């Protein structure tokens, strides 16, 4: 069973539907016992960083997420779930994140001057072949072509301190940003695998089907 962590920031059912379509058993839950017992976990999310951190604190989910990650089982962060793993975000003033991975969440307005914000739609992910090799799990990016399209919708991007964890990069208005990271058992993406058609489903399948 894969735990889809419910911290009241929408976007849960699409993830569940995608896993169901792949024949992967999952449960939407904020119950710590269930999360810790799961074979894999997903932290999805859409919305504001500060609001999300508030919910995570209120629901006492931050330490369980850290514990789950330390257990070595596959963990996937999606969009806001990706942002929250990092040190801090500059959305509406500086807010601390979970600091599980080090880096900052910054606004596109710093670099994107002649295109619309949010960055919405299908954009290419260029895979960093050195990073996507992962020994203990089937890499989520296995068989994903190096210029595959995924679905994005965001106004902020992640700038990881350690560039070695950057698994894919994407370009918007001549600005190249990190579109996913892979570090040990943590894979997190800016794009939405559950909304990226068959390409996105492949990522979920790679990471969770064999568990």
């Amino acid at each position, binding site marked *: 069973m894969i735990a889809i962590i419910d911290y009241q*920031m*929408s*976007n849960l*059912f*699409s993830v569940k*539907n*995608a896993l*169901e*379509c792949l024949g992967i058993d999952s449960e939407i839950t904020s119950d710590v016992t269930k999360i810790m017992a799961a074979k894999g976990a997903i932290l999805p999310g*859409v*919305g*504001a960083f500060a609001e999300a951190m508030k919910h995570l604190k209120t629901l006492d989910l931050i330490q369980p997420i850290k514990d789950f990650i330390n257990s070595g089982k596959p963990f996937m962060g999606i969009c806001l779930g990706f942002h929250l793993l990092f040190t801090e975000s500059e959305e509406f003033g500086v807010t601390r994140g979970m600091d599980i991975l080090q880096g900052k969440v910054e606004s596109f307005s710093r670099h994107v001057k002649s*295109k*619309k*914000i*949010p*960055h*919405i*739609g*299908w*954009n*290419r992910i260029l895979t960093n072949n050195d990073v996507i090799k992962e020994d203990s799990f089937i890499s989520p990016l296995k068989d994903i*072509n190096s*210029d595959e*399209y995924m*679905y*994005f*919708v*965001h*106004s902020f991007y992640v700038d990881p301190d350690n560039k070695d964890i950057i698994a894919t990069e*994407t*370009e*918007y*208005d*001549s600005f190249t940003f990190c579109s996913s990271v892979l570090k040990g058992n943590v894979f997190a993406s800016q794009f939405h695998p*559950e*909304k*990226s*058609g*068959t390409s*996105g*489903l492949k990522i979920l399948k790679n990471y969770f089907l064999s568990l």
Partner: protein
Amino acid sequence: MLVVSIIEMSLAYRIIPRLDIKGPNLVKGVHLEGLRVLGKPEYFAKYYYEQGADELFYQDVVASLYGRNSLHEIISKTAKAIFIPLTVGGGIRTIDDIKNALRSGADKVSINTSAIENPDLIKKASNVFGKSTIVVAIEAIKQPDGHYLAFTDNGRNYTGIEVTKWAKNAEELGAGEIVLTSVDREGTGSGFDSELIKRVTEVVSIPVVVHGGAGRLEHLAQIFNNITEISGVSIASILHYDYIKKYKDLDGYESEGNIDFLRSSKSMSHIHSTNLTNIKEYLISKNINCRVVHDN
């Protein structure tokens, strides 16, 4: 593998089928008021998804007039089978309506009437659900003096509000995107209204998807070449006939009769029906960046 050299801006233009829904059925307006049933929305949706639709729009076309909002079963069925973003609109009036639509499986909601009547809804909804979840739909009708005014209730209700002012206001209140419909062009197949589109894309910094007027492949290439700031197009008439022709017999469609009625009104003769695969291949051949789906 496609040659990548032509593509500077990697974000692809979005091609979004729009399905008008009444009760359990997909419908299409034939004349100004009449709605014809074409079949089951979830079958069309699956077909479009497989052909490479980038997103889907479901519009409940009667909800606004009668205050109803009964799409949830269709949304649910669709969300279990297609894994691209689904935007739902029509009769969405409150935070609860939005919550319910998202719960059923919608990724975004589109609001028009309720946003104009109560602009604060945009702000509130954007705060609760996230900016990217809230799409403001603007239905524009050109006035004799050259201005475009925003209408509600599928182009029936006069508001007196000028479109560019409203678009700017919607952005300030927290809309994530705008879907701009030319009511004058919708269903006519006579091409998009560039003037309208230019005016709106010039005043907002959020993405704008345009709707109304696509009748042939050339219209799509033209609009992307003319106004590179648009994020995508929403199309309806140009697509639905293709599905019907293909699946007329398999879909148990016989009860609706043949499709000649769809061509009976003068305006329909301007629609050169096609499918998404053709559209995408055509755009690529014109060096317009879009996402093509390959059979896996």
